[in-house]
């Protein structure tokens, strides 16, 4: 009796520690997310009750060219942003994983973009990218490029511009995760490889990469979800333009919901975005499991 009581007590104490955080999560995240699955099947303009409309929202989405544009753009962003960020942050981590003078300073500097306000980043990069007198194009012209791209003001170059800035912003954070991963690789493995006569590239291929496997997997999952729900950066940098060239799904949801008051339809698009993130993550888990066994 008293043992059971003591156990219950421990559980209660544990739960009470969780409670403040869980309460916030419950009210601000879980309940809205669950409600989303209901509102996705209704027509709702926020005032009054929602009317059940079955699969209407999804049928409409099927024929909605803007939805497909947004989906395509989101895919475009993800396909380039994920490998690029992965490569750059891994490169940075390897570079800053040595015993250099001032390595702490360089690590901090690489982390700066991540903690800088997105609005400031967007504003500054927009000025750098300015087609007429921005420094980026000044340099390109100096290098002999006759017609440098219009970056955020041209439909063809706006997505590459946003991807570049997205990568630049995220690289510091993932570098930190990679750095942590690198610490877990035992030094003896490198020593053994050296004794066997492996050169730097061979050591990277045979020791570092396999050793980083769990970290890489974790980062890929985070990056994938992050790329699919990219919002703030694009909203402030290009607002989806010019035209619809950088319109992404989360921004489309925002537009439909908060600007056009179609909360039902916006919820339906959110469900699709959720399903995509979920599926991609499941596939990644399966692939990872198969690879590690």
């Amino acid at each position: 009796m008293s043992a059971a009581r003591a156990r219950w007590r421990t559980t209660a104490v544990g739960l009470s520690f969780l409670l403040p955080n869980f309460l916030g999560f419950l009210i601000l995240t879980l309940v809205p997310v669950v409600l989303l699955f209901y509102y996705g099947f209704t027509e709702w303009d926020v005032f009054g009750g929602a009317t059940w409309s079955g699969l209407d929202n999804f049928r409409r989405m099927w024929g909605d060219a803007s939805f497909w544009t947004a989906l395509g753009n989101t895919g475009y962003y993800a396909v380039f942003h994920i490998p690029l960020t992965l490569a750059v942050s891994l490169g940075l981590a390897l570079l800053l994983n040595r015993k250099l003078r001032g390595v702490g300073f360089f690590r901090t500097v690489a982390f700066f973009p991540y903690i800088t306000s997105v609005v400031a980043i967007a504003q500054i990069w927009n000025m750098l990218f300015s087609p007429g007198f921005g420094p980026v194009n000044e340099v390109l012209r100096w290098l002999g490029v006759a017609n440098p791209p219009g970056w955020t003001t041209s439909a063809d170059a706006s997505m590459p511009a946003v991807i570049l800035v997205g990568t630049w912003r995220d690289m510091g954070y993932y570098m930190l995760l990679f750095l942590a991963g690198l610490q877990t690789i035992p030094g003896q493995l490198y020593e053994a490889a050296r004794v066997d006569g492996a050169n730097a590239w061979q050591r990277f291929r045979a020791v570092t990469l396999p050793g980083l496997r769990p970290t890489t997997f974790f980062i890929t999952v985070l990056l994938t979800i992050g790329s699919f729900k990219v919002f703030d950066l694009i909203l402030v940098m290009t607002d989806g333009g010019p035209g619809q060239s950088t319109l992404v799904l989360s921004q489309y949801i925002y537009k439909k919901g908060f600007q056009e008051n179609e909360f039902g339809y916006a919820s339906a698009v959110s469900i699709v975005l959720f399903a995509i993130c979920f599926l991609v993550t499941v596939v990644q888990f399966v692939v990872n499991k198969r690879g590690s066994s």
Partner: protein
Amino acid sequence: MKRSLAAVTAFLLAVTGCGSGGDAEDSGPITLTLAGWSLATTPEFKTLADGFRGTHPDITIELKEYDANNYDTQMTADLAAGKAPDVYVQKNLKNFYTYQHGKQLADVSDVAAKLGSSVGGLAPYQVDGKTWAIPYRSDSWVLFYNKALFDKAGVEHPDGTWTWERYSAAAKELTTKLKASGSKALGTYQHTWQSTAQGFALAQTAGAELPSGNFGYLKPYYETALGLQTAGAQVSFGDATTNSLTYQAQFGKQQAAMMPMGTWYIATLLSQQAKGDADSFAWGIAPAPQLTTSATPVTFADPTGFGINPKSSERKIAAAKDFLAYAAGPDAAKALAGIGVTPADNASAVDTILALEGAPNDEVSRLAYTKHDTKPENPVSEYTAPLQNVLKDLHTAIMSGSKPIDAAITEAQDRAESEVLSK
């Protein structure tokens, strides 16, 4: 035990917002809440509240501040949650349909019936034979011009009969002559908003209708805008967006000799010139350039009005109606004009506003301020908000040079048909 239970119940009721937050008394002093934004820099709400208090000492008006950029989103959330103020502003007409259709506005037809005929901007608020909001501000787009730069370039001032063609020619002439005289100022500045082209096009083209889904009427206006950009008579759209140029600095810091803008800029320019945020120079306003010369210049802008939250108590609604009648009336018009704001009753305001220190008082400026046919920027309809979003994409595509005008118009028409009008 019983006591603590009661306390918990009271707490829960308070937290969940239940219970009767009522005004039990039927007489005596009453407090109305009024929505406003950026109260520190937007004095009109306080001016109206104070002015109303002068004639209605038993009604206190309490201001509730909202964020200017997210006003409609925040207001929608507050209305849906039942936490909205008694009187709230219709900042423009884009969201009026949402509020009216969503039954978030009380019928104020009785207030409208008593208003004088000089109150502008009432018509858009009338749906199904009833009036749902009362305008207190009624701005119009005019052409601001820098008299000093015109004189420096030796170009004739606008005479009140300008067409877009004449305006374009003047902008190009100003650019060349200003450059020759060593000035860096350009001929004109059309801000990055879609309304600088689309607002005029919709208002001035005969037969143009937003919900028709035919946007061919936009073409000549975009030809003018692109022409100015190509000729270098105006900052390119890309440079304006990437550098987040503000129209206040473009005109106020004499970067451009002309600028089409709404009359709300009069108050801003006067105060910025007084404080030194803008250069001191002589300026004037002229009627907006026209598609073809017309007796009464046609222009656009949405009125700004007050609506009443229908969830307020009956007594508060009655008091709020008194406030609405005051805000649209001649006394409020003079008070608003005194701080440079263009009231709904333009005629009662012109002598006050153009007599303010630093304001222009020439014939053309008076004409521009008083004589105009102002059409709504966002005609009230179910389709306005989504159509304006489609047209915003068209605007950025054309102005950035990403799409030719015809192709962008065709695409916008297709999108309007399949995404908005057919749903």
